């Protein structure tokens, strides 16, 4: 079996950004003093006139990006997820979302796997904040390849987008293929439970499904990369077959992907759902794997959630 390489999703963003810079001369990049962390260096070096170092001023960065779209530019803003959303929510709401500007908000170091920096930087509310904004597309890729290809895909889409990725090196296991906004990806087929996962938890979901196979539980594992708009058809098709689901995400349970899926299924095909996510708490310092275990968002937590939800199924 081919060994799976470990790569960070933010490097996927950097590679994708360089690529879109080559494809489209209207693409510009803005950064709030985190060029290295966001892997935007290659774009800066190749296209210095299209790279804007804004300084530590995220609100100004969002406004400048909004203004640049008026002259036909396609701005990609880069900073940590915390400073890409919570810190600048009103700027995004008024100057980008309400004004329907073609800004790509690219956010690294999302979630608890940011690790040692601790809770001040570990935003776990960003998906909720961004998906509530009318017209905002929310994308949370799971590995390097997906992040790179999602970066390219959003440059071709007109409208505001929130692209969320992370810091740690994680398995790069998806195909290097074109990313389609709004389409979930079926990773394994099963009959007993649907596992909908996003971001770093997609790999954990695959690992969990292998373990569950040992207990004769077969899992439909689906990678939901686009959280908004949601791939309703794929989700409903799966739950109509399995009759129960687990949703796994590196985000608050309240307001995340799980809520979107519960909302959909409650209207179209009610089923029991268990939620693997952060349960109404802040994070803390630590290494990413330790934190995932402590905050119950690792593969073992998914295994346990699946076993419980299957028991809730109507016979």
């Amino acid at each position, binding site marked *: 079996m081919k060994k799976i390489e470990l790569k960070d999703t933010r490097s996927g963003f950097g590679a994708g950004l360089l690529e879109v810079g080559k494809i489209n001369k209207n693409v510009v990049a803005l950064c709030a003093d985190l060029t290295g962390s966001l892997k935007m260096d290659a774009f800066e070096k190749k296209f210095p006139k299209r790279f804007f170092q804004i*300084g530590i001023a995220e*609100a100004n960065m969002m406004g400048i990006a909004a*203004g640049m779209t008026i*002259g036909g*530019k396609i701005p990609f803003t880069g900073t940590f997820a915390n400073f890409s959303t919570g810190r600048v929510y009103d*700027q995004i709401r008024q100057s980008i979302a309400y004004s329907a500007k073609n800004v790509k908000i690219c956010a690294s170091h999302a979630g608890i796997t940011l690790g040692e920096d601790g809770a001040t930087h570990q935003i776990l509310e960003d998906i909720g904040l961004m998906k509530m904004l009318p017209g905002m597309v929310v994308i949370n890729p799971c590995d390097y390849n997906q992040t790179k290809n999602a970066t390219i895909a959003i440059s071709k889409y007109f409208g505001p987008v929130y692209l969320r990725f992370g810091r740690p090196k994680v398995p790069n296991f998806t195909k290097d293929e074109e990313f389609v906004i709004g389409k979930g990806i079926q990773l394994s087929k099963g009959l007993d439970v649907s596992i909908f996962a996003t971001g770093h938890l997609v790999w954990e979901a695959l690992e969990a499904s292998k373990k569950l196979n040992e207990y004769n539980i077969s899992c439909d594992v689906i990678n939901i990369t686009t959280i908004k708009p949601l791939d309703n058809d794929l989700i409903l098709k799966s739950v109509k077959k399995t009759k129960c689901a687990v949703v796994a995400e590196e985000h608050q349970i309240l307001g995340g992907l799980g809520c979107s899926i519960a909302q959909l299924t409650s209207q179209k095909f009610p089923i029991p759902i268990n939620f693997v996510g952060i349960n109404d708490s802040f994070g803390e310092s630590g290494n990413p794997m330790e934190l995932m275990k402590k905050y119950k968002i690792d593969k073992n937590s998914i295994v346990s959630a699946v076993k419980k939800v299957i028991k809730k199924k109507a016979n």
Partner: protein
Amino acid sequence: MSNYSELIKMCSQVRRDIVRMVHGCQSGHPGGSLGCVEFFVALFFSIMKHEPDFKMNGRNEDIFFLSNGHISPVYYSVLSRSGYFPLNELNTFRKINSRLQGHPATHENLPGIRIASGSLGQALSVAIGSAISKRLNNEKNTVFCLCGDGELQEGQIWEAVMYAGAKKVDNLILTIDVNRQQICGSTDEILDLGDLQKKFSAFQWKVIKVKNGNKIEEVIEKLKLSKLKSSKGHPICLLLNTEMGYGVDFMMGSHKWHGIAPNDEQLKIALNQLEETIGDY
């Protein structure tokens, strides 16, 4: 429109529009709107190269951004009287199903509006982005922005002021409406703005003062000077001294008419002080 008597007539008509619009929906912000009439009339009827056959990208045009969006009545009146949209649409201000939202928005596709504003402190950043975009597109035009003086209390303004000065965004003219009033009182009482000339100079801006921003001749003269001084390595800050409520005696000299509408009797008194010159909408 180039001669002063025509512009003065336009100012009187715009003032009538403002008080009638605010009266018509019994809400809105007449004070700041009335104080900025000369600035808007000068900009749209004399200074800016702009095309009322509206295109969002504003390619090869001068572009204006209103940051203190609550003075939308003066903006809508001048846009409409410039030909961006029909005059009778002013009747719909702040009413349901209107393109004339309480604060300017792009959402209803009102011609002339390129960004939503209302939550304060944001449009200067947007104007900087637009100015940078024009440079990237090799356009020679100027980007204008208006902020209220109370609005300078927002932190984002100073992020933007620091950026434009340091990065030499010099195709940008920011006007500050210095009326020294805000909702709860005078700016001196609420949060003293200090010496704005020194502050903007310290941030590497070229500062030009307009002693009487309610005198159209001076406003035009200083806006022309601003354009002359632009593209020379510094953004321009025009400190425009105005009187809130200017033109309607009982609305002047106080913060009280910042955000309330006149009743029927007050409207009558106000309109008696403002000559109908071009024709009401």
